């Protein structure tokens, strides 16, 4: 008897089959999609494009929101991309999964290390030494290096060379970590980053030739590497100002929406005595950042250099009104007040500046990287 599709049963059967097929296709497609996003995320992580990795991971998590592994990977990616608050958010979601407890503990530890807790960092390096081939072992090296460099630059961001660093255990650990990283991480992006870290460490020892060599090599391999180019500019600024300026111009072309580059260029121009050019750059920035203290201070400095203390004061007071309390502002206002003949006020700002300098000097003399 031939199969007839006209019957009720048949229609139900067909509908059911269609539903199953649809569900199957959806499920398959969903798995493919998630898998695709995961692979893209991994590729982005390998390329050290952490923001991009996070985007792919979030897409994957949209369809698999309870996937603790994805969530942990997102926490790691955010941390490695220095978005610490997002990293914490993902990590806290992971807490709901008991199987993640060990991995999560490591992630929290690395969060602290990367934020400068080198006591924890030393502990984690010891863990690494015992199991250097563990899957996430390299992340320990990375977190330590980032945390160490962040810790050393301190509040004012100075990469300040000091011969005392060479004898510090934490510095030796950082050098060892950089060597391990370069030895084990063969991917191009990781290699470039390793060169940048090592170059910065050489710079801190005033080993200028090696610092420059590493940073140049990093740039050769990845001309778009922001950190490499910026630190190379800083290294060569004293002796090759033309090259330093060319690096800044390059960064500005690539990152026209990053006001920090324009600010650096404006400062550069002021140092060259090109006050009009500095003024113009700063005025452009101030249109969209009228309350930015670094911009306001620099704008005031341009007027101070131009011998216009009244105009300088106007900009500096705006910076002061934002609550900005930094040595450069105190110094500039002190100079301003002295030029204006307002000696009591000048003295007040000069005293404040001296307090900042005394703090900095104490930190330098201690020459020990203290964990928070």
């Amino acid at each position, binding site marked *: 008897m031939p199969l007839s599709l006209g019957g009720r049963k048949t229609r139900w059967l067909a509908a059911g089959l269609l539903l199953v097929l649809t569900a199957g296709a959806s499920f398959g497609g969903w798995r493919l999609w998630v898998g695709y996003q995961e692979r893209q995320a991994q590729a982005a992580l390998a390329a050290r494009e952490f923001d991009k990795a996070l985007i792919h991971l979030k897409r994957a998590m949209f369809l698999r929101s309870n996937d603790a592994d994805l969530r942990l990977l997102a926490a790691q990616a955010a941390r490695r991309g220095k978005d610490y608050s997002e990293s914490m958010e993902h990590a806290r979601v992971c807490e709901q999964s008991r199987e993640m407890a060990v991995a999560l503990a490591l992630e929290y530890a690395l969060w602290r290390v990367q934020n400068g807790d080198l006591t924890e960092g030393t502990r984690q390096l010891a863990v690494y030494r015992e199991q250097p081939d563990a899957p996430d072992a390299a992340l320990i090296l990375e977190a330590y290096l980032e945390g160490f460099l962040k810790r050393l630059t301190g509040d004012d*961001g*100075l990469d300040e060379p000091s011969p005392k660093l060479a004898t510090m255990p934490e510095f030796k650990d950082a050098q060892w970590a950089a060597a391990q990283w370069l030895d084990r991480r063969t991917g191009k992006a990781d290699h470039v980053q390793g060169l940048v870290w090592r170059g910065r460490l050489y710079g801190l020892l*005033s080993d200028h030739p090696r610092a420059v060599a590493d940073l140049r090599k990093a740039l050769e391999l990845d001309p778009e590497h922001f950190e490499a180019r910026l630190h190379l500019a800083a290294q060569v*600024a004293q002796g090759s100002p*033309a090259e330093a300026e060319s690096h800044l111009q390059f960064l500005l072309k690539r990152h026209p929406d990053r006001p920090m580059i324009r600010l650096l260029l404006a400062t550069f*121009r002021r140092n060259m005595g090109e006050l009009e050019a500095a003024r113009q750059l700063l005025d452009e920035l101030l249109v969209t950042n009228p*309350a930015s203290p670094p911009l306001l201070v620099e704008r005031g400095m341009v007027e101070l*250099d131009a011998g216009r203390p009244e105009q300088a004061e106007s900009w500096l007071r705006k910076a002061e009104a934002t609550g900005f309390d930094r040595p450069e502002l105190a110094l500039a206002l002190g100079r301003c007040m002295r030029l204006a003949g307002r000696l009591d006020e000048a003295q007040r700002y000069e005293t404040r500046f001296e307090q900042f300098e005394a703090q900095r000097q104490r930190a330098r003399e201690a020459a020990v990287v203290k964990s928070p």
Partner: protein
Amino acid sequence: MGMQHATDTTRGLRHPGAMLIVAIGFVALAMSGAIWVAVHSSGPGHEAPALPKNPDGLAWFRDVTADSGVSFTYRTGRDAGHLTILESLGGGVALFDYDGDGLLDIFVTGGGDFDPPRCDYPDDPKSYIDAVHKKPPAIRGRPCKLFKNLGNWKFKDVTKETGLDGPWFYTHGAAVADYDRDGWPDLLVTGLGRIVLLHNEPDGDGGRRFVDVTEKLGLKDTAWATSAGWADLDGDGWPDLYACHYLEWTFANHKICPARSAGAPWDVCPPQEFPAPVHALFRNEQGKQFRNIAKEHYFAAVNKGLGVVLADLNDDGRPDIYVAGDGTEKLLFFNRGGTLEEKAKAAGAALDDLGKPNGSMGLDIGDYDGSGRPALWVTNFQGDVHNLYQNLGKELFHHQARATGIAALGQHWVAFGTSFLDIDNDGWEDLAIVNGHVLYHPILGSSLKQKPLLLHNQEQRGRRFFKDVCALGGPYFATPAVGRGLAVGDLDNDGWPDLVVSHSDSPVALLRNETAKCTPAHWIGVKLVGKGHRDVVGSTIIRECEGRRWTRFAKGGGSYLSASDSRILFGMGESQAVGRITVKWSWGSTQTWENLTPDSYWELSEGEPKAKRL
């Protein structure tokens, strides 16, 4: 939208990583140099007037040392290998007419060495230091030299016949003044643990000789003396003496320090490792005695002194004193009529524009901006911008190194001898600087030997601006060396200032100014003579013509360890009209002369209405 963008941007600026990078770049680059003039011209501000171009093969300065008869090298003692901070200072040059023939002669200090050398001591650094403390090497002085100017760029070594053939101690600097007002310039030499005053007197054969009168006059100074300068500080007509002291160092507290560069384990220690001594201020009691009155002026041991200049800095007719120190705040003493008031910080001349003291070595004063007031100029160590303090009047100074293009030189220089001089006689004071590191293994890619610098004072957008013109200077300015003392003087009386440079462990250089071949100009020179040969440092000389004014200053000290030609030159550019020359005599009155012919030297005597052509 704008606010959101502003917020995002602000957030971007506050992002920890971003702030890190901003701060690194800001401080590093805020302290950095800038573009070389010739390389980039994008954007406003690169619209400097074109420099005069030299005819083919000509340069502003020609090194004429080889055929001059001046063959001399200052020795530091470096070869002994002790890595002493003493050997980092180098020596100076004095240009003065010792024999009254109208030609500037050249005196150079000799330095010294150490015996035995380091290799006779244990290898291990700690053992070496222990041994050298217990049994220090002898510090021997090397001969200084006096070269008589025979004219036509020929010189003769007259050291022996003038009584200057030693024995010498480890010497550094020289300063010149007629301390006894007999009409003949006398010579002061400074060095480790001593200063020596040499009286210029007849030798009985129609010539001149120098006689050591240090002890006789009570000029005792056992500290490490570096730069010195003379000026009549109390208005009695007799030049008093300011002697900078550097550090308290001997082999008894000698140390060597880890090299900051990865090139070698050890290097010379920085000055921070040693305490600062009090400087000396000697009152000249009518040429018969000297008395150190530093205590009466409450001098404190706060400045590791390497450079001093004396001149009237606040237009009150009295010579003031400005002192450059190595890693310490500069000192500025205003002369209140015999008492000195230290006001560098209040005047804005103690620190740089980042609020830091600097490693300061050489200095000078000059009216670079046509204000009629002397600006303060100081050369500094690597990592510091040189200081140019614009004189705003009312004892106030404003740091203008960045606005005047000085910061554009970069910061890998370690600069010593320096002077304002009008290289091309266009009427504007330019700058010459000699450089050379003190570390044998410098950091950040700097080097022991460094090129000297010539900076031309130009107008740029209504401001004065110093442009690097080494390319016009000639081969000397393209050659790295370890430069130390620099003296400026018109050695051939052609009205164009020449240079003499002392280097550490390499020959002295004589640089003849040949700018006239490239850009001819007129000039006028004056020599001031005080009444009864009184000291005239602190006097101000003004040339007025066609509604414009040019101002120069009679100064003591200046540069580094050196003494320049005391005559005053005014470059006149294309103008042949001298106009009026006014001298505001220190401690005294004002006099004016007119109708002086250009392109010649004139002697202007206090109280004499008529100028004497030289």
